């Protein structure tokens, strides 16, 4: 990709695979090694399995809350593949695949969802708000968009340190309306920070369709406002995503500045386990997108490359089911609550007197009255 600013009228949709998983643009093929191709597929299948299983568990009351990323697997895995180990991620809540790809363990993953005693976040955050420092997967927060300019700050720090690290941040189409999107891209444009902005344009922000989110025809063209390149890619095509992501990261590392990637995909499920899309969108729309399923397309691609077989699929699914079941069992066996004293830790590095006082008062109260609940 040229370092020059992308002209908005030249933002075609980048595709490598056609709907049948055949390579239609060999020049764009990122030529991913065989092992990685299979690993990408494995993670796609894992994500799909997790979404089904965890949404069901949520419905059964075994889990407080959950958010699926069904239909957006290619965007997650294609981009994750292109990232280097030392790169940093400022995610939103809908890219668990990026964390799992980078080595987030299933058991920790579940413990976070349960917020139990083994949750690395000590039961403090809602489910799906992961934080995994060892893989540079930065703490997710609920307010939409806040991570975007933070990513730019981290990228600026990496630029100052000249340590070769690039930063990626993920967000949805709705997030492009936030203040933080604007200031993030604007600062990045001025600093030419090594930052890649990955917008998962899945068409909806809860009940609000893209047409009510912005007057612009594409998200990619918003890059032009900041003098940076904008790329539009088929977000259901893992190879296309991998390709544009790799280019953007190369540009970042070469000192050529940030890139905005619009990955065009679709939110097939509800916004979250609390949502009911039947109240606002035509059920034929998700149905249509099922035909453009990124996992199936990728499977066909592997099949065409003779990397896939029914036997392998069976083995894979069984392995995943086994791994998930084992990790879930281990996670569910953990004490459901972290210790009460932990609630007062990590507000500051050293606990000030007032928090120690509050902790002691609560512990005294619980000692007198037993665990909280109706009895109180």
């Amino acid at each position, binding site marked *: 990709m040229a370092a020059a600013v992308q002209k908005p009228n030249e933002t075609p949709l980048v595709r490598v695979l056609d709907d049948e998983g055949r390579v239609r643009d060999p020049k764009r093929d990122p030529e991913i090694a065989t092992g990685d191709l299979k690993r990408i597929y494995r993670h796609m299948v894992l994500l799909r399995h997790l979404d089904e299983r965890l949404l069901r568990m949520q419905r059964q009351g075994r889990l*407080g*809350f959950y958010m699926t990323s069904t239909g957006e697997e290619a965007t997650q895995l294609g981009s994750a593949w292109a990232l280097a180990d030392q790169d940093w991620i400022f995610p939103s809540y809908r890219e668990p695949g990026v964390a799992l790809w980078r080595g987030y363990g299933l058991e920790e993953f579940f413990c976070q969802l349960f*917020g*139990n005693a083994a*949750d690395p976040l000590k*039961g*403090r*955050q*809602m489910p799906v*708000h992961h934080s995994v420092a060892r893989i540079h997967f930065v703490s997710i*927060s*609920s*307010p*939409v*968009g806040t991570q975007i300019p933070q990513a730019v700050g981290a990228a600026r720090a990496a630029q100052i340190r000249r340590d070769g690290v690039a930063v990626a941040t993920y967000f949805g189409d*709705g*997030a492009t*309306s*936030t*203040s*933080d999107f604007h200031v993030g891209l604007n600062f990045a444009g001025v600093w030419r920070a090594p930052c890649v902005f990955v917008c998962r344009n899945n068409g909806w*922000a*809860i*009940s*609000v369709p893209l047409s*009510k*989110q*912005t007057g612009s025809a594409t998200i990619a063209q918003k890059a032009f406002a900041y003098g940076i390149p904008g790329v539009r890619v088929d977000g259901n095509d893992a190879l296309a995503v991998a390709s544009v992501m790799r280019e953007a990261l190369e540009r970042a590392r070469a000192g050529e500045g940030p890139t905005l990637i619009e990955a065009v995909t679709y939110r097939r499920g509800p916004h979250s386990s*609390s*949502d009911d899309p039947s*109240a*606002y969108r035509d059920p034929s729309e998700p149905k249509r997108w099922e035909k453009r399923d990124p996992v199936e397309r990728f499977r066909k691609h592997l099949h065409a490359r003779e990397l896939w077989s029914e036997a392998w699929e069976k083995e894979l699914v069984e392995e995943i089911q086994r791994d998930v079941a084992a990790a879930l069992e281990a996670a569910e066996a953990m004490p*459901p*609550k*972290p210790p*009460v004293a932990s*609630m*007062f830790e990590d*507000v500051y590095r050293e606990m000030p007197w*007032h*928090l120690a006082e*509050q902790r002691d008062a*609560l512990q005294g*109260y*619980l000692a007198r*009255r037993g665990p*909280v*609940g109706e*009895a*109180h």
Partner: protein
Amino acid sequence: MPVMNIIQAVNDALRLEMKRDERVVVLGEDVGKFGGVFRATQNLQEEFGEERVMDTPLSETGIIATAIGMAIYGLRPVPEIQFVDFIWSAFDQIVSEAAKFRYRSGGQYPCPMTIRTPYGGGIKGGHYHSQSPEAYFTHTAGLKVVIPSGPYDAKGLLLSSIRDEDPVIFMEPKRIYREAREEVPEGEYTVPLGEAKIAREGRDVTLLAWGAMLHTCRKAVEKAAEAGVDVELVDLRTLLPLDIGTVIESVKKTGRVVIAHEAPKTCGYGAELIALVNEKAFTSLAAPPRRVTGYDTPFPYTLEHEYLPDAGRIEEALVETARY
């Protein structure tokens, strides 16, 4: 009289006022076709159209800023902030603009608008779907801050807020959105801003609370009664401007006061109440005023019921204060 929950009461108030006053418009994320993530604006777009019930892009500062422009222009906007936890990007527009427009223009540009927003914990919402930030608003001159504790007040206070000539932060106790149910008159009626309500008369201790905490307090008051302590429970309803008369009269009677709120303790609204009680009823005080509050930590997910004041903690404070 129909029985309603708070969501229904809010919806009813909005519908009635939109019918009565064509200046009233509703805007926010997901408030239109979806009717709001809590369904408080359900069917309003169907009835009043897309121009009066607007789904907005995802920007709280955009919602509030455009609502200010509408208010200045002569409409009566009722913006919704989906969770009060997301209001901060709009804080500049609220604090620097809405709150100061009338004043800084020498009275030329009033800014009547009612920001509706659910607040509070107990719904397994973690850091960002649970907070009670009323004290950030009560420290801001030019705003009014209203928090109903039940359907009847929700409807009557919301109608008063929309009709008020100044910007109102209307915080709705989402934990009891559906749980609190009571008879609510069908037509219009108003509950005046700035008037507290004695929820229960008592002689021994005054208990000040608002919103969802009222319900926890009721349980605490019953327990305290079993322990022989007769509590006067005051539902403040409007925090700014405060109904100082009712508060001070009660404290002068009982000589003792406990305040319960979900927000963190330090610089919460309870501090102001204690300062005012000192100012106006110092000689009546027979015991130190007590606060039972959320802790000075971010709002936790798993331990939220340990975090929130519960009836037991409030009861202990009441009994200890009474026996001081």
